[in-house]
């Protein structure tokens, strides 16, 4: 395809704007060009975070001497048929890229057409163009950008560390690589090969970029309507992340980071994901070029559809349907209880609405069944039968509590007070705001009896909060103590995550997590925060990485620290499903009373709810 100057009319229709913001945007433009040229292999070389050198080599169709001369001029492009911006098929199209880059850096292009016997080279420096001259090269094109922003020193100041810029470029390349699984991508810095992706199937590419685990925990989806089609992969709701950093959106193969689109993904998952969790998705939208306007944003990140409402509902429905299909095997709990735990509020200050609300919910369900008879509606759950005795008899549940005791593994005796003392302690404990532990149910919840009702505690959430508060205290008091690992643990990550973790190694060490590089895409963990005990180290590091990637902003240091600590706390040792002795349960309750902000876990869920006797009486229609 020969390069022509765009007519004036068309130039005017192109929205003005800076194309070159940072090294990553240069990479994006150059690699898109390479892909448009039909490359089967694209190699990107980075030096000094792209400041001293960005080079993109491809084995595409190449350019003639004439093309070369024209290519570096503003609004010259090989890609627009019929002078129409409407039908936009290729990736880079605005004829601005090379000219814009040439304006702020030293640009050199060597290119050879497939059928030509010689290559041509052209150099442009701060906009000054030299004549093309013969050069040596295999068919294809090499674009070298040296000393980016040397002509505009003010821009240099806005660049982040070489590491951060390299990571950003890697991110851009991965997005493009996801859309082009049949093309080989290599990304090399002075230090190492950041990644090297062989051409292969789309699934193989997804596995290489989002990790095998994503594919293992994802469903495929597809839908089509009135010329638009969507397809892709979405993670199961249970495989969510703390950050929306694994959402890849493509429109006609073009990576976009359109906020509206990511909002749609969130909407589709809204009722299956808790607040603050995000799905991983790869979403492709395809339509005829005239049905979409990709010319909204100078960097082509945003898009505008001819029928936005249609596309919106198409995406949401496709995802929802798939989630419903895949998710129906998940037993959804009946959520009737109203959360009780506000910051610092202990039970005696609590409004007594929880039980009533629960009862209301049951009644509503009953009403929905359009049945007149209400009274005999519920098959009383077994505990219900004891309800009459509950108020009077402290021992009603004692037998239940005993059942859980033999299950405790001796090694788990961590919080144990001595058993004799606890017997008498239980009486006294009733005077505590969170009461005396009676039993543990389903290895997850602690039931405690207080003076005026019962308290149900989510043991995992409560312990998580306590650990977080402890970590914060330790940090404030001069340092989080760390336990060395006798056998250091190797954690496999995707390259981005490993980079992010290593880039923050110093901060993490401050917080008690000591990591070292361990080959590409892996880190070695040497020490962990002591407060976490024996934890799932791999899971911990993965969550921390996702967290870091999402909060990679210098000004948010404090916030970032809190995020990391919260992630740590999530990985403490008392997970749901572990049996606790009564002493352990009481110890947990007392610690909750001592710990500020223990009313909710750090995902905003309550750690306990209370049912007063009045609530219970209402529930059983005794009032």
């Amino acid at each position, binding site marked *: 395809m020969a390069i022509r100057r765009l007519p004036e009319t068309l130039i005017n229709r192109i929205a003005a704007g800076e194309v070159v913001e940072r090294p990553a945007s240069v990479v994006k433009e150059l690699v898109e060009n390479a892909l448009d040229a039909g490359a089967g292999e694209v190699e990107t070389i980075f030096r000094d975070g792209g400041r001293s050198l960005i080079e993109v080599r491809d084995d595409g169709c190449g350019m003639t001497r004439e093309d070369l001369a024209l290519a570096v001029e503003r609004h010259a492009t090989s890609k627009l048929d019929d002078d129409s911006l409407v039908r936009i098929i290729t990736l880079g199209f605005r004829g601005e890229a090379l000219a814009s880059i040439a304006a702020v850096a030293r640009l050199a292009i060597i290119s050879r057409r497939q059928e030509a016997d010689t290559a041509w080279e052209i150099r442009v420096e701060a906009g000054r163009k030299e004549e093309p001259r013969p050069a040596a090269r295999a068919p294809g094109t090499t674009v070298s950008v040296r000393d980016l922003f040397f002509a505009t020193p003010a821009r240099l100041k806005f660049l982040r560390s070489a590491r951060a810029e390299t990571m950003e470029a890697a991110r851009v390349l991965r997005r493009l690589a996801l859309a082009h699984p049949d093309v080989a991508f290599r990304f090399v810095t002075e230090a190492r090969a950041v990644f090297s992706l062989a051409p292969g199937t789309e699934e193989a590419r997804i596995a290489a970029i989002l990790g095998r685990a994503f594919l293992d925990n994802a469903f495929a989806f597809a839908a089509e309507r009135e010329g638009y089609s969507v397809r892709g992969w979405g993670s199961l709701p249970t495989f969510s992340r703390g950050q929306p950093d694994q959402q890849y959106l493509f429109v006609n193969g073009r990576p976009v980071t359109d906020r509206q689109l990511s909002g749609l993904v969130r909407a589709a998952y809204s009722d299956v994901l808790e607040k603050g969790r995000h799905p991983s998705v790869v979403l492709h939208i395809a339509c005829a070029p005239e049905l979409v306007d990709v010319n909204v944003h100078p960097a082509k990140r945003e898009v505008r559809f001819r029928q936005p409402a249609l596309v919106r509902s198409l995406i949401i429905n496709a995802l929802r349907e798939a989630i419903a299909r895949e998710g129906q095997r998940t037993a959804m709990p009946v959520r009737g209880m109203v959360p009780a735990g506000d910051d610092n509020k202990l039970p005696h200050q609590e409004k007594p609405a929880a039980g009533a609300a629960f009862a209301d919910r049951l009644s509503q369900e009953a009403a929905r069944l359009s049945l007149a008879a209400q009274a005999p509606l519920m098959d009383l759950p077994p505990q219900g039968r004891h309800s009459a005795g509950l108020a009077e008899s402290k021992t009603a549940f004692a037998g239940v509590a005993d059942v859980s005791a033999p299950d405790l593994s001796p090694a788990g005796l961590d919080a144990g007070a001595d058993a004799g003392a606890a017997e008498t302690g239980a009486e006294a404990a009733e005077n505590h705001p969170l009461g005396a532990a009676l039993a543990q149910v389903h290895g997850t919840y602690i039931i405690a009896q207080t003076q005026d009702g019962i308290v149900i505690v989510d043991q995992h959430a409560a312990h998580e909060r306590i650990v977080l508060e402890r970590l914060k205290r330790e940090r404030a008091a001069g340092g989080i103590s760390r336990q060395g690992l006798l*056998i250091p643990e190797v954690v496999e990550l995707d390259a981005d995550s490993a980079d992010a973790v290593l880039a923050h190694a110093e901060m993490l060490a401050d917080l008690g997590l000591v990591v070292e590089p361990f080959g590409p895409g892996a880190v070695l963990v040497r020490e962990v925060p002591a407060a976490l005990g024996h934890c799932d180290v791999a899971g911990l590091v993965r969550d921390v990485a996702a967290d870091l990637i999402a909060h990679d902003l210098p000004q948010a240091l404090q916030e970032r620290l809190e995020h990391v600590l919260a992630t740590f706390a999530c990985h403490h040792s008392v997970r749901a499903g572990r049996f606790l002795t009564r002493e352990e349960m009481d110890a947990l309750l007392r610690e909750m009373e001592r710990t500020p902000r223990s009313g909710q876990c750090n995902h905003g869920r309550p750690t306990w709810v209370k049912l007063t006797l009045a609530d219970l009486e209402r529930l059983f229609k005794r009032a």
Partner: protein
Amino acid sequence: MRVTVERNALLKALGHVQSVVERRTTVPILSNVLMQAGEEGLKLTATDLDMEVVEEVAANVLEGGAGTAPAHLLHDIVRKLPDGSQLSIEQPDEGRVAVISGRSRFMLPALPPEDFPDLAAGEPSHEFAIPVDDLAFFIERTKFAISTEETRYYLNGIYFHTLEREDGSVAMRAVATDGHRLARAELPAPEGAAGMPGIIVPRKAVLELLRLLDAAEEDVQVALTQSKIRFAIDGVVLTTKLIDGNFPDYERVIPIDNDKRLEVDTRLFAQAVDRVSTVSSEKGRAVKLSIESERLVLSVNNPEAGSAEEELSCHYEGEPLEIGFNARYLLEIAAQIESATTVFLFSDAASPTIMRDSDDDRTIYVLMPMRV
């Protein structure tokens, strides 16, 4: 089947076998004990499918045969019969087992003995006899370090293996680690054990074994098949599956050139650690050891509950050193050390530390420091 048996003998045997029977099992036959009456007497078997305990009781067999009955129920019944009484067990029909003693008569539901699992089969590749004390030593010295964390399941047991020492003799080792500390016990290998494959005995079986060793006197006969290990202890036979995994190359984490040597009175040290750690509200808090020649200071600093410090005399060569450890880990290891003096070998505040008994080089403990 019809046998008469002495109550105390039966009670003891039932006590041994019933402890492997899970109280809450979904498989009815697994809550039963298998009783087989043969020439040697009455053989009782119980299992949870991971391990099996078999014990023979002297009995007067009037009629051979086999039956099963609920283990806990049978145990409770026998326990309540008068001391020294005789009882008779018979099977009036396939579905029931009768227990008769004096004027008491119990009818228990039975399940067919053919349905009862069998874990004993298999030809052993290695057989050897090990003194009770040796086996108990291996287990007692290492069991505290067994990991209970499930993701690294291959650490959920004690690793036994043999190796050739430099002098050509063969040693047997037991090793356990939870990733924070490691315990290794070594003794001369029993005859016949040389060349046995390294095996990981699951924690549950280890604890059961230790209970059985408690009253044992004769050497324990050990037989190893491809996938199981069998211990015969004074007439009780425990057979268990093994952990199907590879134990990590633990030698690599045991430092060999730690040159800073501290000697301290074991009992005084343990008491001091216990005392200073009272001020830390959480058990996992670090105790700091500040070591100079002849002087060891233990301290804990808890911003809320205050601080504690205690000084001990010691013997120490080397540069002054400050190093922190999890108080609980220190106490657990100190509890293993029998002699008056404990030896510490340090490299630096970030590297694995060795603890050992000054008089006993059969065991070695490795502990990772805690850092603040």
